């Protein structure tokens, strides 16, 4: 009877999750959706508390108490520019929890059948990869370690053989779970190592893909844990999250015109390309004052933000400039490339923080349609997403990636710290075009100089 009631509540919370996710995909209802999904979670937690398997509440309350405090503090304190790191960390924590539950259940049960053992194996494997993978992603995003791909000789072979070894161990473990205590530890350690190894060869600019994929993994891990403890709520919500993560991953891959395997295995961005050294091309550099004169005469301005905007924390100044331009009857839009920044939607969040209305944000395809009529394109801290060689140069490693075609605008201003190439390590022919002018310096400083001129 009690089981029936609990499962009834799980059903309700699953419905809440589904409704919540549905609403999260529409701007109007998103806030409500998040709230509904949180209520669903609360219902699931309370329902679990009345489960007859639970005999001791002390540690549960302690654990939830600590987790809640830490969760609230971190969510309140995190800067919007650091949101990718936050998402990576939370992802990782979910994965770690799945690993620990799988491992714990293994110790707890004496008689485990093959099916349960194999789900424990999956729970540990996917949970472990999600955990350490996310930690590495976090470290890369936070620049605790280099954002460049870390490659070494025989890396692929090592990764593949490790995964193979893990699968074999997993099978042995599943067939004969009771006598293999040490094997479970090997599984845990192996999964953790695999997580590290699979993310270190991926460059920082590919993080939008990695984060969405890890998001998906954390769902799949929860799903596997659901099989371990035969819990419908976990299976349903895990599958929903897994599916949504995969959709985001494929959107990100499409936006870069690359396959998932290319992102995961190619070590993109580690290439050293010196093609441009043969002809010395000169980029034109102008001052903030010059930029002001052009901006003042313009009728329409499109701002293209990139990761550099987040690094410089310049989103509020951009908004200020946008307001001033509008006061002068200049039409201002923001063109956002799907993979600008370090996670899906990164730029949108930053601009929202600075109070930029979201109807000013235009997606890549829409802006490319009208970009010929734009007077000034200001590229702030973006590089690869406006690199014309992706469109023109068949030999370029990023050839085929859809870009925001700023070079078609009448004037292009590029706010940049130096001539250094973007993350992909590829020179940008855009910088040498006639209608392009570079404004060197910190984006924040340059913007405030332009604003002062008005």
């Amino acid at each position, binding site marked *: 009877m009690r089981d029936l009631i609990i499962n009834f509540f799980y059903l309700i919370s699953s419905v809440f999750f589904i409704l919540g*996710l549905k609403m*999260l*995909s529409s*701007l109007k209802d*998103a*806030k409500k959706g*998040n709230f509904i*999904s949180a209520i*669903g*979670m609360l219902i699931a*937690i309370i329902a*679990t508390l009345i489960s007859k398997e639970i005999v*001791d509440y002390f540690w*549960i309350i302690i*654990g*939830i108490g600590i*987790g*809640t405090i830490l*969760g609230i503090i971190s*969510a*309140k304190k995190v800067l919007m520019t650091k*949101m990718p790191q*936050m*998402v990576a960390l*939370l992802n990782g*924590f*979910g994965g770690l*929890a799945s690993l*620990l*539950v799988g*491992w714990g259940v293994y110790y*707890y049960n004496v008689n485990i*059948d093959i099916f349960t053992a194999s789900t424990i194996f999956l729970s540990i494997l996917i949970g472990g990869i999600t955990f350490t993978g996310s930690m590495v992603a976090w470290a890369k995003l936070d620049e605790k370690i280099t954002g460049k791909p870390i490659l070494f000789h025989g890396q692929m072979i090592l990764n593949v053989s490790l995964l193979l070894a893990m699968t074999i161990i997993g099978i042995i473990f599943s067939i004969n779970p009771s006598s293999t205590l040490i094997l479970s530890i090997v599984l845990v350690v192996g999964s953790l190592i695999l997580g590290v190894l699979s993310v270190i060869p991926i460059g920082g600019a590919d993080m939008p893909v990695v984060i969405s994929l890890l*998001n998906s993994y*954390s769902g799949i891990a929860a799903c596997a*844990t*659901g*099989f371990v*403890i035969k*819990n*419908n709520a*976990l299976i*349903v*919500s*895990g*599958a929903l*999250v*897994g*599916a949504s993560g*995969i959709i*985001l991953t494929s959107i990100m891959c499409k936006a870069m015109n690359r396959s998932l395997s290319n992102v995961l295995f190619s070590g993109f961005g580690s290439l050293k390309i010196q093609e441009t050294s043969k002809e010395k091309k000169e980029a034109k550099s102008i001052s903030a004052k010059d930029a002001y004169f052009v901006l003042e005469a313009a009728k329409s301005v499109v701002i293209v933000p990139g990761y550099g905007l987040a690094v410089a924390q310049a989103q509020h100044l951009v908004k200020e400039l946008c307001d001033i331009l509008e006061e002068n009857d200049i039409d201002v839009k923001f063109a956002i490339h799907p993979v600008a920044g370090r996670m*899906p*939607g990164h730029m*949108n*969040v930053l601009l*929202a*923080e600075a109070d930029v*209305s*979201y109807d000013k*944000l235009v997606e890549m395809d829409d802006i490319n349609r009208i970009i010929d009529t734009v007077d000034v394109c200001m590229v702030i801290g973006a590089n690869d997403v406006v690199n014309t060689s992706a469109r023109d140069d068949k030999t370029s490693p990023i050839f085929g990636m859809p870009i925001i075609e700023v070079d078609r605008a009448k004037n292009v201003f590029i706010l940049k710290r130096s001539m250094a190439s973007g993350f992909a390590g590829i020179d940008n022919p855009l910088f040498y075009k006639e209608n392009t002018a570079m404004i060197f310096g910190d984006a924040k400083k340059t913007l405030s100089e332009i604003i002062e001129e008005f």
Partner: protein
Amino acid sequence: MDPQTIIFLSFILILSIFLGFELISKVPSTLHTPLMSGSNAISGITLVGAMVACGAAANKPLITFLAVIAIIFATINVVGGYFVTHRMLKMFKAKDKGSRKK
């Protein structure tokens, strides 16, 4: 686990995956980050599993230890995820020209 349970759980899994794809196939890019952190909070449902493992493991210190750590991290995942999503969504607004939707 008896075959019937396996089949039953597998049905739930497969149908949920399809449902997930249907639910999220058309998301405006502005919502990509909140969707990710919001769905991430849902994946913290592992908390339920951790609670069961923890509560059932009285007098087994090692399991209790593993489970409590799991509870702490899953709770951070859940609470942090929902809060941070809420914080972001609160910032999204269309002003100036009324509340025109895109």
